[in-house]
Every structure is written in C-alpha cells, then in structure tokens.
C-alpha cells in the first residue's frame, strides 16, 4: 500500500453521534402502520410431552388476531437450519414452534398475534397447555451415562456428533515424555447478552410479492437465502435488512425460529408483524457460548519441550442445533497447538444433547476454549517441572523465521513474532519487579498472583473451502456524479466501527475527504451480496474487497484522465485525489471531476462502460493468525475469596492497524468479556434443566467498575494473506484474557497447594480451596 494519511489514524467513530444521541434506528424503532405484535408462550419445562393446547379463550380476547401452535405450521415453515456439516452429525427436527414435545426451558410453543404488545402478552395467560413432564438431563456428562433420559428417541445415547483429529506420533510422544500432566478443564456456558436483544419485523407486499424482513442480525445475506428456503419464497422476492444492531458477539450469527415465524405471519396475515425479544427470552432462547468439559494431557520433556497434547472433550450442544452449533468445538481442535511447536496433537469431541438451549458461536467461538486449554496447561506443566511460566513458553515458541508455521492440526500460521510480544508485555508490566513484590507480600500473608497468556488465534474467516457457506466478501465503491463516494460492503457491522475504518481505506485510496464517503451495509437489496460479520473477518476480508474495489476505481479514473489528456496512463501522477501529467503538474483532474466525465460519458475511451464504480469479491487464500501476550496481576484474599485485579497489560498483534481507537476498543471490550468468563459469568441450569440465571439479577455481566485500568500496547506483524496486511481483532481480547486471569489467580494460591480452579472463579470456590491447606511459608492472616 502507498504511504497514507487516514489508515493508521485515530479517527473517531463516525457512527457514535447518532448512537449516543438516540438517532439510530434499531428494529424496534422502525414503525410501520398497521403492525401486529407477537408474544410467544414458552415451555416452562426442560422436557415434556405436549398433550393438548387450548387457545380458544386467548382468541376471544379483544385485540387478539391469531393464536398459532407448532402443529398448525409444521408443514408451512421449514426447519431451523444447520449449516455446519460433519459425517456423524445427527440433526433432530427443530421446528419454529414445538411440535408434540418440548426439549428445553424457553422453547417456543404458541405464538399470540395481537393489535398491540400488551394484548399479545395478555393472551399468553389465557392459553392452556397440558404438559406431561418427562425426565430431563442438563449435565452433558450425565447425558452420556447409561440410563440417562433420552432427548431424541432416534438417538438413545444422546450423542449429537463425534469429531476427531490426530496428527503426529502421539503414542511415541507420551512414551518418550519425562512427565505427563493431566488436567480436567471446564468451560462453563455463557450468555452473549447483546445490549439490544433480538427483534424481527416483517412486511409482505402482495402486489410486488415481496417480503421484507428487518432483523437484528449479523448475517443479512445468509438469512435472506435461508428465509427464502424456510418460507418457500423465491429468493429474489425476499429482502433482509439489518438496521442498527446493538451488539451480537456471535449470538446473531444465526437463523432463529422467530425469523421464520414472523416472516410467515406477515405473509399469512398480510400485515406487518413485529416481535421484540425480552431479556428473559434472550437468556433462555438466544444461543449460549462455550459449554465444554475436557481432559487435557500433555507430554513434556525434562527441559520443558512439549512433545504432545491430547484433549478429549464433551461439548454441551443443548437440545437442538442452531446454525453453527456443531462447527464450534472443532475450531477448538484446530487451535490446540496454541502459539507453540507441538509435534503430536489429538482431539476427540463428543457433542452431547442436553435439555438446554443450543450452544453456538460466542465471541471467540472455540478459540477461547483452545487457548484456555493450552495456556492453562503450559502453567500446569511449568509448575510440575518447577519452571517459570515465561521460560516454558519461550522454549516452545516457533521462531519468526519459521513462518508460515505449520501446526500438527493442519493450519499454516501466516506470520508472527511471539517472543517480541511477550518481551514487550513483560517489560510493560515490570515483570521481574512484580515477582519480587509477590515474594515480599507472601511473607506478609498477602497473595499476589501474576498470570500470563501468550495466545494465537484464527481470524479473517476465511477461505471458502474451509467455511460452511462461503468465506469471501463483497465490496463496491462508486463515485457519484457530484463526487461523493458510496461504499457498499457485504459485512454487517454492529458495533465494530467499519463505517469509519472502511471510509479510511477508501479516503486514502481515492484521496477524498472522509466526510465525502458513506459506507452502506446490511440491506440485501442495496448490497447485492455478502457473507456477514463474524470470525473477526470484516476488515481483513471485507476491508480488502473495499480496498480492491477502490483500486479498480482509481485505475479506471486513471484511464479516463489519460484519455482526456491524451497521455499514457503510466505518465500520470496520482496524489491527494488528483491525476496530473508527469512534469506538467498544472494539467490535472480530480477524481470528482473524472467521475462527472465518467457519468456524462461523452469523451470516454472506446468500449469503456460509463460511470465510475467498481466491485470486488475477495477470496482469501488463508486465515490470519493474530497473537499477543496478556499479563494479569491479581491479589486474592483467602479469607473472603475476593479477587482484585491490580494490573492488566495486553500486547496484541492484529497485523496492520487501520484505526488504533477501534482496535483498542475491540481489545477493551474483549477483555471485559474474557474477564466475565474468568471471574463470574455462568449460565446455570439445575439438574432438572430449570434455568436459574434467567435475568441480569442472577447472571453477572461485567460492568465498568469491574474493569481495571488496561495498559494496551501493540506489535505490528502484517499478514501476507491480504494486501492491507490486517489480521483481525474482534475476538482477540476475549481469547487472550481469560487464561491470563485464571493463571494469575492460581499463581496467587500456589502457597495453598492450588494447581487449578475451574471458572468462574467465584469467591466461594477460592475460599474453599484456601480452607483445605494452611499456606506454605506464610503467616496466616486473619
């Protein structure tokens, strides 16, 4: 790329003024005349047979227009789709509303449609559903045991799928090992909790035969395709719009029952229909993340060289698959080499049905699990060998000249310098000094812990061959007759700030003002095609498409200018948005002037099409692999189990940085969510499948006061995978932070003989561990 002004600059988010002044339009802000409202009666049982449903009383209620049961529409709306495939995959029929049986608390059973939201909700109280409760199972390990309640009668073992990976000489590695370190690791279920819950509005125009569906989604184009299949409508009569979307974190990378249902109701009732999710529904029926229980084993030589890693894991699927449910745990498998040279790796996944909501992609999606396994195990191994956590990591890093680095899991890491990021973080944290302080405080009965995580992750998803539904991205750049620039992207930003960063890319390419550029996304009728925003792909893949489209526009403009000047295109300079003839700087045209010529089309080169616009579809050749080091310092109070974060340093390398403010924002938000998982977030179901954390009074989200000051820094190792050199940063904070925090707490509790604690590290767990043993070499504090 040429030397630039905007790329790399701290440009404030252009989206923010409308967001913070309440001028943005989320689904619920879109008001169409004559709209009907839907409320959904949901199962109070984790597992039950539906014996009968009585809807007459509800139907008679003033304002109620329709009351719909699953049985009535089972043949009218297709099943909820699963995109991830796997030869052993078992896909239970997942209806939009339950038919005959419910399999988790919150599963939709009856929809009431009414003139307003109140009437719709009131109608639910008048519906009588006669359930016959069935035994339920919520613990995936118990679901595998003989005699467990069976969730789908076709598959009495409750197994949803199996997946395995085995590379290298594992048996040899374990034979040769000086030590084998084993650890059971739990990745608890989390709720993504976007601030804006889901919401759907649909309108059918019978004249045009067009269905428009507004949904709070991350994937409008994929949703359009799936919706046309579910509703058996021609795809070119379906339009999906993702208006302002208030966060997703993967939870809106899906096709949900309500999207099919509301689309269907708009068609059937011939009126606009709206459904807005409540927070309770959001925790019950929007996908959950994580939910793995595994056994890790590491074979290591005496000097700390890792020889092999084996991970057997049970993945808690929930009652049904959602769009990518079975595709998430294998991502853990792919990333099991972490940032280390591990010659032999094996993973076995057993996906298990449970009477719970489905798990699926949540920020990091499989990679936080992998990073947690690897980074926790590095500390466990170091502890067993009496090595320091820094030493063992350095020992096993691939060197910069070893890139592209091939892992035993079959990936080729694009570029990296892991030690540089680690060294920088150690220096920033004042690591040596911290260790001295830790020692001093321990002798006073105070417990400081220092934890690190040297993560690598997989981004920019991805080459289409490795993706369930295309990994390319669409971009278009159009210079309007007046010189303003319109940018179209197939990604669907919902908080990431690409209206700003994509404009920065185009501003540099075309030499136009940022204020003259508009980035449009999220409407399938305006943006012809796209894949969407997830997997930290938007800038690396979508941004590259924009970059390439802008490049094409520039080249076309050059040809037009050359034609007008009767010069050779090679003899033109381009700078600050203006083409000029080499050596005759006065003879020049701005890109805006050229755009007007292109539209007037009177003096264009022969055979050139009028207009100044270009599209590009970028297909990446590989994933990208951002990396970094997070260091967390905590103080733990054994008497109450409270953890205080004293210091947090993150050095992240996401390749080339387009906007440092956006990158920092992504890292900060990511760390907040990683900290939530490490310390207190957890979706809890009781053993009968009742959800015990169905509101934010019980599900603990991190808040501003929970966050320490974050010392953020970077190294910049561009990727060769795309011309921008950007890797992606949307999930790195979440991936890197969780193990750093857990490692810090475990480190603090070493004097108590602690080697591991399962997340979330709630005070009671820590207190209990501190009860079992008097601290070594320390005076017991009160």
């Amino acid at each position, binding site marked *: 790329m040429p030397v630039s002004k905007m790329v790399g600059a701290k440009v404030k988010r252009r989206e923010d003024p409308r967001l913070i002044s309440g001028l943005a339009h989320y689904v619920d802000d879109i008001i169409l005349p004559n709209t009907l409202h839907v409320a959904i009666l949901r199962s109070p049982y984790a597992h039950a047979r539906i014996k009968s449903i009585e809807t007459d009383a509800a139907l008679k209620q003033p304002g109620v227009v329709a009351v719909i049961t699953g049985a009535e529409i089972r043949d009218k709306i297709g099943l909820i789709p699963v995109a991830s495939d796997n030869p052993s995959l078992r896909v239970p029929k997942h209806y939009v509303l339950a038919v005959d049986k419910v399999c988790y608390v919150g599963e939709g059973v009856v929809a009431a449609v009414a003139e307003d939201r109140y009437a719709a909700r009131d109608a639910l109280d008048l519906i009588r559903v006669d359930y016959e409760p069935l035994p339920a199972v919520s613990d995936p390990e118990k679901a595998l045991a003989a005699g467990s309640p069976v969730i789908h009668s076709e598959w009495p073992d409750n197994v949803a799928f199996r997946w395995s990976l085995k590379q290298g000489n594992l048996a040899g590695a374990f034979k040769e090992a000086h030590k084998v370190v084993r650890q059971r690791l739990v990745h608890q279920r989390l709720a993504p909790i976007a601030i804006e819950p889901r919401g759907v509005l649909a309108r059918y125009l019978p004249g045009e035969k067009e269905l428009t569906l507004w949904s709070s989604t991350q994937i409008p184009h994929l949703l359009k395709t799936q919706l046309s299949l579910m509703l058996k409508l021609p795809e070119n009569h379906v339009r999906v719009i993702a208006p302002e979307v208030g966060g997703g974190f993967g939870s809106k990378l899906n096709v949900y029952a309500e999207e099919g249902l509301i689309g269907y109701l708009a068609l059937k009732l011939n009126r606009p229909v709206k459904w807005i999710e409540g*927070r309770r529904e959001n925790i019950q029926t929007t996908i959950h993340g994580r939910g793995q229980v595994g056994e890790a084993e590491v074979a290591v030589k005496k000097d700390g060289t890792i020889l092999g890693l084996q991970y057997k894991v049970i993945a808690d699927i929930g009652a049904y698959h959602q769009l990518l449910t079975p595709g998430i745990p294998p991502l853990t498998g792919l990333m099991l080499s972490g940032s280390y040279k591990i010659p032999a790796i094996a993973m076995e996944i057993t996906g298990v049905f449970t009477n719970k909501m489905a798990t699926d992609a949540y920020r990091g999606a499989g990679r936080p699990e992998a990073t947690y396994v690897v980074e926790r195990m590095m500390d466990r191994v170091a502890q067993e060998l009496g090595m320091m956590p820094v030493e063992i990591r350095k020992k096993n890093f691939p060197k910069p000249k070893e890139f592209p680095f091939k892992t035993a899991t079959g990936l080729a890491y694009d570029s990296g310098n892991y030690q540089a990021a680690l060294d920088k973080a150690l220096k920033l944290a004042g690591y040596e000094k911290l260790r001295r302080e830790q020692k001093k405080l321990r002798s006073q009965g105070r417990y400081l812990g220092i934890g690190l995580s040297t993560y690598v992750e997989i981004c920019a998803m991805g080459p289409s061959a490795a993706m369930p539904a295309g990994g390319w991205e669409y971009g278009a750049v159009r210079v309007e007759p007046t010189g303003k620039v319109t940018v179209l992207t197939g990604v669907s930003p919902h908080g990431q700030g690409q209206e700003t960063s994509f404009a920065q890319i185009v501003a540099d390419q075309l030499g136009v003002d940022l204020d003259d550029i508009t980035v449009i996304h999220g409407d399938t009728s305006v943006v012809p095609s796209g894949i969407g925003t997830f997997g930290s792909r938007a800038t690396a893949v979508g941004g590259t498409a924009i970059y390439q489209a802008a490049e094409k526009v520039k080249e076309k403009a050059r040809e037009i200018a050359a034609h007008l000047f009767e010069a050779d295109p090679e003899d033109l300079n381009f700078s600050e948005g203006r083409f000029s003839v080499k050596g005759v700087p006065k003879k020049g045209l701005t890109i805006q002037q050229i755009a007007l010529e292109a539209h007037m089309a009177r003096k264009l080169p022969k055979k050139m099409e009028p207009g100044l616009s270009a599209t590009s579809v970028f297909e990446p050749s590989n994933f990208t692999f951002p990396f970094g080091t997070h260091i967390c310092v905590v103080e733990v109070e054994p008497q*109450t189990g409270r953890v205080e974060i004293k210091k947090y340093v993150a050095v992240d390398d996401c390749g080339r940085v387009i906007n440092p403010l956006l990158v920092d924002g992504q890292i900060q938000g990511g760390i907040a969510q990683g900290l939530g998982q490490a310390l207190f977030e957890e979706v809890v179901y009781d053993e009968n499948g009742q959800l015990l954390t169905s509101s934010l*009074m019980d599900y603990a989200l991190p808040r501003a006061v929970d966050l320490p000051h974050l010392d953020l820094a970077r190294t910049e190792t561009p990727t060769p995978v795309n011309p921008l050199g950007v890797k992606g940063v949307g999930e790195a904070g979440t991936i890197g932070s969780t193990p750093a925090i857990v490692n810090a707490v475990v480190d603090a509790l070493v004097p108590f003989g602690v080697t591991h604690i399962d997340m979330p590290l709630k005070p009671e767990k820590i207190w209990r561990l501190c009860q079992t043993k008097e601290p070594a070499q320390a005076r017991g504090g009160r």
Partner: protein
Amino acid sequence: MIPAPFDYVRPTTLDEAIRLLAANGDEAKLLAGGHSLLPLVKLRLANPKILIDLSRISGLSGIRQEGDQIIIGALTTHYEIESSELLKQACPLLPETARMIGDVQVRNRGTIGGSLAHADPAADLPAAILALGAELRLTGSDDERWIKGEDFFLDLMTTVLKPTEIITEIRVPVLSGRFGTAYLKMPQKASGFAIVGVAVWIKVEDKACTAIGVGVTGLGAKPFRAKEVEKKLWGKRIDHTFIDADASHVDHGIDPLDDIHASAPFRAHLARVYTHRAIQEAVKRAGVSMPSR
C-alpha cells in the same frame, strides 16, 4: 417484561392514600420508587389491580432534626440519604449504607420506605436501621404506631405492616459524643445486593464501649440484630481483645440462605468475617487510639 393491566392512582394526601388502600384490600399495592415492585409486576410475579403512587403526597419525604432524633420521610430516596449533610454529621452510617445500594439510577428512584417495606433479605438499609435501633412510623386508617426496626421484620419479604398501613417516617438517633460506624458488604455480583452486609454502630466513653448495635443483612431470611455479638462487647474496654473478639456467634440461631451465589456455610463464614471487620472499622473511626501490639 409486560405487566398485566392495572389501574393507577396518584393521591395527594396521606388520608386519601390510606382510604384507597383500605378500599382496595389485597388488590392494591403502594408504589414508591418502583425499583422493587415494578420488576415483579413486569414479570407478572405480582399482579396488583391498582397501584397507589405515593410520590405526590407532600411531607412524605425529606430529612429533618427534631431534638436528639432525625426524622426521615419514607419517600426519601437513597440518593437523598447518601448526600444529606445532616446525616453525614449526625448519623453517617445511613449515608454510608445508602451509597452502597445498586447504581446511581437505582439510588435516584429507590426509597427508604420502599426498601424497608419490601423486606428483601439482602437489602442494605435494614442492616443500618437495625444497628441504629431506628424506629418506623406506621400510619393506618384509624391509628398510628411507632415500631422498632428489630420488631418490624418477620420473615422473607414479610413485615408487621398491615395491608392498610403505610410507613410514613423513620427516626434514628442523633449520634453524639465519641462514636464510630461502618457498613461492609460483599455484593452479589449480578444484582449488587448483599450476599452478606454488616452495619455497626459503637459508642465509646472512657475507652469503653458503652453502646453497640450490629445489624446483619443477607445471611438469613430476614435482617436481624446480632444480639449475642452486642452482648459480648457491651460495656467492655476497647483494646486488642475487644477488636479481636470472636464473631463466630453472629449466625447463632440463624438458618443461612443458600443459593447459586453463596452456600449457607460460606454465608455464615462471611458474616463472621464482615462482622469482625465492621467492628474493627467502627472502632477505628471512633478514633480510639490503640497501644501498638
């Protein structure tokens, strides 16, 4: 989060409110800040037919001194308590406690009367009310009574309040002489309510503790006054033995709550730790100089 239909009335006098309450019986609910009641109504866990909004009744809120008492109107918000100069001087335990309730929005709406009437076992203010030996004025259709805080709470979300009574005022003593107070809590991470909270008020004369109040919230089904702990310390000289005194009997006779946030044994343990620490802190704030150990 859509409530069932209800009527809404906004009386301007206390008499009118009491009359409405009496006329509607169980169907009616008083509405103060709404920060406990409205979530229940929106989840349809409470389905009152009529809400009687107290906010327009003059004289129900505000903080004033009358002799050696401070009178706090039941509709006084947590924020008003937290920021009252009068209370900061004369009864700092209340502002300290109020400051630890929820967040700014909650404190701007929630009221002391609502918090006490609601009797959430994990609410903060009851601990301070009990430690201070405060009294509540309950006004009903034909009579009015003052009741001690410790006699007010009966059980989980249950008080002596009759269906036709309104809490109108709370009175706390003006603390004078040498004294120290403290409120310490371990918040439940999601809700911010207390897993355990302990409020202590201690009066010091001639280096001895001449009065003490210890109020505990979060531990049991209702907030309570830790009489056994108080008894042990009442009248004692304040020295190292005093501040090291064992607080293990704070949970004596209490059946601790047990939920996903904290088990019963952990709550009992925390109650001991926090009682101990709150006493230490109150002693420190009383400015008692301790010989070094």
